[in-house]
């Protein structure tokens, strides 16, 4: 090596070491690989998380969540609170103050009118906006002046940060989408494919369901960022080959959502070309217990509250089922670094986590057997327990996914040890999670004894999530099976806690309420939590600045990403 090159590389190293930001676009191209391709860049009309992630390169919300779940101001000067006067004392209004230096990528300034318009766009009843729930109870959104937006709620909102916070509800440009309100939303292909944003990048070419190419936004608020001049957001294929393209062949810099068996992922990571990163949000893989009777002979009344389940309503049974499961085995077999054992339906944020259910952490087959014996469930000739002619025979359903089928098989074995018979079924995800009221196989209909899937919530506030399990949310033929209380759990005490949370502003008290609700659900046997699931992605060894985030888009801080030389 010649002396000059050594000196030059030493100089380059020292620049990198001091952390001095290179200028905008100095690091060339960033190649992202999402095995589900982006279909649309308007998050309000998207059909899945991948579209939100792609759009987060272009569009910004008022505030983001960082990797610890804290809100960070993006387009605003600060996060409004009661202390700084941004949130009114009666909890019905929140006032955001926009930064005055934000330009859209076409060079026009961001104003309060754009923010107001974004809310109107999503709240339009005929728009089919998928973030509509974030705008629940919003009475009005007003542009007080060019820099100030005031959102008024019809009821007190202890957590008023739903609208326009996080990747699901960013601010879109009024000038571009003005003619796209309501039913006309679908006709605006050009705007939906090339939204003008305030984010670090802007679209140069969008091929739906294939690839998005982007370039640095020349009007981005920080003149030194982003470090990458162009981004390629490629889609297609499957998770395992996406991991391979980053970890083994090095063709791509970042691969998203690598739900791959841990042993395969570990083998790939051993090639040393990249790093596997994971982060944990509130997602829990859980067994949902049907507290109503799914017996087909009941006909229309199947899986409705009119008929309690013959054995799953017995807390001894659900507790025994939970104790019999060795969750660590499930984590090791299916999740690796992307999973942790959990006994709670609400596993994060930290302050909300209950410790009352930690008995389930260590499996105890003897104790489970003892509980069942005590409750009068005795083993029959074939080893399956029964009482009064009711056999402990469970139909256990989940979606088609190799990790889930592996978990199902393991759980079946574990339950065999306590005299419980299990029949396994798996249903294609688009059917299982679909909401077609005529399909018998949806999670809402619950024509099975136990279902397994993951549920989670957006942001850090669990109020809406915990409100899912009120009596009024139970799906039934009367409400066309629309409802989120899948286990059909119903308790006055629980509903009272939900109502109380809706009035409580103090964070500590809210956390205490959330913990109590969590404990009520577990004690009633409505859920058997299995695995606290993280998100797993991989990035090339040369990429710096990735802060894996489960509370927002994984690309939330892409403007800070750089490439080490």
């Amino acid at each position, binding site marked *: 090596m010649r002396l000059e090159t050594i000196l030059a590389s030493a100089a380059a190293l020292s620049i990198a070491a001091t952390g001095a930001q290179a200028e905008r676009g100095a690091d060339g191209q960033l190649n992202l690989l999402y095995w589900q391709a982006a279909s*649309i860049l308007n998050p309000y009309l998207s*059909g899945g998380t991948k579209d939100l992630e792609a759009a987060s390169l272009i569009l910004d919300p008022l505030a983001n969540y960082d990797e610890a779940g804290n809100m960070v101001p993006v387009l605003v000067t600060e996060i409004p609170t009661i202390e700084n006067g941004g949130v009114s004392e009666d909890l019905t209004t929140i006032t955001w103050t926009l930064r005055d230096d934000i330009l859209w990528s076409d060079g026009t300034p961001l104003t309060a009118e754009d923010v107001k318009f974004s809310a109107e766009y999503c709240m339009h009843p005929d728009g089919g906006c998928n973030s509509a*729930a974030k705008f629940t109870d919003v009475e009005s959104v007003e542009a007080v002046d060019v820099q100030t937006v005031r959102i008024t709620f019809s009821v007190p909102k202890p957590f008023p940060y739903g609208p326009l916070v996080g990747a699901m509800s960013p601010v879109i440009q009024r000038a571009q989408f003005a003619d796209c309100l309501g039913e006309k939303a679908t006709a605006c292909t050009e705007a939906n494919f090339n939204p003008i944003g305030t984010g670090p990048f802007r679209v140069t070419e969008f091929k739906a369901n294939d690839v998005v190419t982007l370039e640095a936004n020349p009007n981005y608020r920080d003149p030194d960022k982003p470090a990458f001049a162009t981004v*390629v957001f490629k889609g297609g294929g499957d998770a395992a*080959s996406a991991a391979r393209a980053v970890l083994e062949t090095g063709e791509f810099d970042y691969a998203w959502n690598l739900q791959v068996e841990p042993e395969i992922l570990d083998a790939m990571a051993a090639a040393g070309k990249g790093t596997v990163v994971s982060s944990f949000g509130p997602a829990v893989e859980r067994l949902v217990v049907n507290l109503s009777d799914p017996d087909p002979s009941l006909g229309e009344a199947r899986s409705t509250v009119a008929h309690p389940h013959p054995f799953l309503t017995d807390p001894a049974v659900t507790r025994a089922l939970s104790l019999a499961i060795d969750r660590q085995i499930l984590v090791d077999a299916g999740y690796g670094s992307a999973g942790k054992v959990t006994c709670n339906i609400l596993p994060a944020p930290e302050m909300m986590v209950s410790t009352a259910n930690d008995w389930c952490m260590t499996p105890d087959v003897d104790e489970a057997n003892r509980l069942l014996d005590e409750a009068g469930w005795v083993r029959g000739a074939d080893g399956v327990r029964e009482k009064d002619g009711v056999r402990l025979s469970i139909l256990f359903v989940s979606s088609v996914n190799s990790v889930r089928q592996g978990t199902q098989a393991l759980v079946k074995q574990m339950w065999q040890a306590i005299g419980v018979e299990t029949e396994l079924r798996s249903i294609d995800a*688009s059917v299982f999670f679909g909401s*077609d009221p005529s399909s018998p196989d949806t999670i809402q209909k619950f024509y099975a004894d136990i279902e397994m899937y993951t549920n*989670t919530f957006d942001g850090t506030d669990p109020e809406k999530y915990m409100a899912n399990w009120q009596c009024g949310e139970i799906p039934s033929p009367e409400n066309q099976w629309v409802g*989120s209380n899948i286990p059909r759990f119903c308790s006055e005490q629980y509903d009272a806690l939900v109502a109380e949370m809706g009035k409580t502003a103090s964070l500590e008290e809210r956390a205490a309420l959330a913990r109590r609700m969590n404990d009520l659900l577990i004690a009633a046997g409505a859920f058997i939590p299995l695995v606290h699931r993280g998100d797993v992605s991989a990035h090339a060894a040369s990429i710096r600045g990735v802060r894996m985030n489960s509370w927002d888009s994984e690309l939330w801080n892409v403007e800070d990403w750089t490439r080490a030389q």
Partner: protein
Amino acid sequence: MLSYTLRRLAFAVPTLLAISFIVFAILDLAPNDPTGSLPLTIPPEVRADIRRQLGLDQPMPVRYLKWCVQFFWNEPLALLERWTGVSLGAAEGRLRVISWSTRAPVLDLIVERLPQTLWVIGMSYVIGVLIALPIGVISAYRQYSWFDQLGTFVSMVGYSVPTFFTGLLLIVAFSIKLQWLPSVYDTGHRVTDWDSFWFQVRQMLMPVAVLALYNAAQISRFLRASMLDNMDQDYVRTARAKGLRERAVVWVHVLRNSLIPVVTVIALGFPQALGGAVITEQIFRINGIGQLLIQGVYSADIPLVQTLTFLFAVMIVLFNLVADLLYAVLDPRVRYD
């Protein structure tokens, strides 16, 4: 011949209408749902609104009729407008077939994707045919020779090993171990000079090889069998008896007659090759028509799946006609009028 062609085309219309209805009915009965891949945090009421916005609350016959109007009337008009630049009026009111997952006209998506599919699939088909011809001819001419045995072995392997396996095998060998070829196809790549042309060749090499092996195996078997049938015919003996050179006998007389059934196989096989390349496109992320179909199925994008499936049906009907016409061209004994 012309009247025959017209008659066949006229017959195709009711067939295609029936196909489109059956496809629509099957898709309607399929229990998947366009809101199925939305995050679970989105509440059911919002999902119901989205389904309503997509028009899913209407009864099935109404939706089918809407699709028919959009596909058979509005779409051709839109195409015409684009090609001629002439406005036919009231374009605002004419709804096109809109894909649910992208909210873009389905035909625009298809037009965008056709080039890469045609390049890769078409190229592999052409190369497959070029490989199959000599193998088929020589295998038949020297039946049971070592060349024939080898040819039989290779085509059996090509025929029976699925493309998703050969594809992965090639990726492991050439992308991971040797790192010679890219494993992900860059659909945005433009050929502007020799370097970019070379890159295009490199990224097409593996998918084309996988599909060409499969196609060649199939066609060479047909050609070999057909050649063997013709080899003992009287006209071959006559050709030899009148003193033609062996090369002329085989490559002109026997091959031409043997090609008649093979040409139909090649013509009929093309639409199948397009549809069958779905898996290969998925493995190499070519993101052509096949991958579009797969993604449509996953996201329950019914207008997209309906339109694509119907276009496949149209192609099969058309290529059937082409095969029949070619038959008449190659074989003067066949007359349709």
